[in-house]
């Protein structure tokens, strides 16, 4: 399963490494935009991440699943620059990088959307989108409201969020729309990789569908997406590939189109004999 490397173990069936994208190029033939190599992160004596590998290509949705405490959110924090790996390293376009801070992650083109939509209810959609990165007319000058409105509309339209007015305050929006705003917020810096940590956790069925629509939209826009989720139905609906974490370790990689929910559940729970096909 280490595409383009020598780590593909014996017995891995061909279908798990088929091209994931429809552009005619095998995903495995391209350099991943983001790779984690043997990333380890320890909290005291517990290894939250134990030599985890993960590849994300452009125009690909990689779902990261696993039980509570499997290390999914830790991985998100490492990629976001909130935490540093104790061992292993992160590559972008095949070159090792250090993500020392959230700012560094943004500079590298990695945007992370965390579980709780962190928005200021009292501010308008456009003010929230640009909070902390406001555009100004000139350095030291006043806010360039016009340009922010125009760019906000552009991003919301690109994502087809259905949010028509950027002047509304956020407390008038539904939870799904709020989540859409947090995702749109991540897009302000024009990232190449987006990590979504449980974006649908608190949403209704309809709102979940809206957010999943957004996720596919991100792929169409050519981004690499890491979708962290509990919900396998959601995951299989939008992901190209499903990576399972168990006790901080890789525990299987599945092609979303050809894998069943049962297989993945087995990998998540570690049921004996269930790891055969995708075991590395």
């Amino acid at each position: 399963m280490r595409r383009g490397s020598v780590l593909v173990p014996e017995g891995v069936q061909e279908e798990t490494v088929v091209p994931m994208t429809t552009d005619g190029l095998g995903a495995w033939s391209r350099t991943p935009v983001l790779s984690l190599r043997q990333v380890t992160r320890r909290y005291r004596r517990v290894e939250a991440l134990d030599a985890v590998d993960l590849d994300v290509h452009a125009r690909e949705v990689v779902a990261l699943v696993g039980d509570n405490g499997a290390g999914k959110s830790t991985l998100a924090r490492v990629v976001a620059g909130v935490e540093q790996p104790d061992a292993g390293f992160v590559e972008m376009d095949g070159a090792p990088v250090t993500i020392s801070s959230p700012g560094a992650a943004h500079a590298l083109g990695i945007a992370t959307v965390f579980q709780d939509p962190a928005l200021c209810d009292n501010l308008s959609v456009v003010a929230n989108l640009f909070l902390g990165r406001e555009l100004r007319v000139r350095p030291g000058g006043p806010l360039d409201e016009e340009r922010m409105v125009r760019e906000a509309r552009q991003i919301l339209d690109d994502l087809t969020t259905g949010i028509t007015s950027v002047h509304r305050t956020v407390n008038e929006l539904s939870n799904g729309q709020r989540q859409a705003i947090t995702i749109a917020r991540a897009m302000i810096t024009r990232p190449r990789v987006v990590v979504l940590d449980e974006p649908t956790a608190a949403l209704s069925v309809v709102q979940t569908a809206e957010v999943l629509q957004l996720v596919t939209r991100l792929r169409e826009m050519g981004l690499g997406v890491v979708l962290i989720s509990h919900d396998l139905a959601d995951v299989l609906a939008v992901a190209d590939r499903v990576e399972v974490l168990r006790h901080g370790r890789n525990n299987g990689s599945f092609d979303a189109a050809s894998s069943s929910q049962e297989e993945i559940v087995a990998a998540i729970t570690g049921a004996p004999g269930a790891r055969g096909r995708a075991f590395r």
Partner: protein
Amino acid sequence: MKSLGQIFSGGARQFGMVFALLALVLAFQVWTGGKVLTSTNMQNIINGNSYVLILAIGMVLVIIAGHIDLSVGSVAAVTGIIVALAIRDWGFPWWAGILLGLGVGAVIGAWQGFLVAYVGIPGFITTLAGMMLFRGANQAIGQSNTIPVPDEIQYLGAGYLPEWGPGTGLNNSTLLLGVVAIAALVWRESRRRASERRLGAEPVPMWAVVTRVAILSLVIVGLTYVFGSGRVGTSFPVAGVILLVLALVYAFVSNRTITGRHVYAVGGNRAAAALSGVNIKRTNFFVMLNMSVLASLAGIVFIGRSTASGPFDGTNWELDAIAAVFIGGAAVSGGVGTVVGSIIGGLVMAVLNNGLQLMGVGSDSTQMIKGLVLLAAVAFDVYNKTQGRPSIIGLLLQNRRRQTLLEGGTADPAVPDAPAPEPATRS
């Protein structure tokens, strides 16, 4: 109904509030048999309340950021005594005395801002301590004496713009101010329209804009006449000019600068603001520092009006300023409020005071009425909030939302509970 809505819609957010204040003034004008809208009385309202309104400007930023400042009256008092003593006894020229006073405000503000922002002591406690500390400091420094101030300081607090040029029947400075105000109004409106057009929004019809500008201009003309036509030597008060300048500056800061945006963000959701890269500590430091500087300015204006600094200056000012801010639509929980709203809130209190006094209502009843007005205004806000409707000020400021509905074509269908009540100003 719709056409009336269009007049009120769009840029002049504060239009509805100006309208409400105007209604109050006119009501008192009728009830007092025409004693309110006289030159002398209007000048008195401005002169007698400018310091509270200056405080309200700083207080609204503090409250938006989610704090409170109880020390403003004491800060004003200690500044007042230092300025008075510096000029009378320490050989400071009057202008250096003013600079010293503002410096005292900055030092006190930095102290309180440091405690609130960097040490993490709640603003309520920090400034409650400051209230006692600086009241005592005022009395210690002045030894509880009353110290007179020179004419230049008195000019700031109680003076009038000079007369010059040809005899127009009005005070020419006031006339000029009125003309500039109308020109600025027209300029702002046209700029806003241009911006809307560039953003591709369906602009408010021209006739609605013209009507709105015409009504506001009429109000300005009326005010120019009232202030300019008083007895010779009077005009729009100097304290009022200071207030106007501050109002413009702070409306700009709160709406159009990153600092202002961050003050709202910190009050709205501190955690989210921090995650977004807003510097929470610097923002909190700024609002506390700013408040004390404005309090010291208010103190200087006040000793000018009362011709001396005394040991009980500034008593209860914090409460007047806070009341003005809440009548002006700010939320106790922070994140909500406007500079212009707070000034209008302060003017509502001032007009109430003045009108009731002119009607011969005793100070006992006046205080009760003011208390009830504050309660009613905030209760209305709270009620509307629980109903998912905008606050009283939000209601008066409906135009913004209506404008966005216009530009968006339809309201978002995914939000069934999008509040769209008929605004009071329409009916």
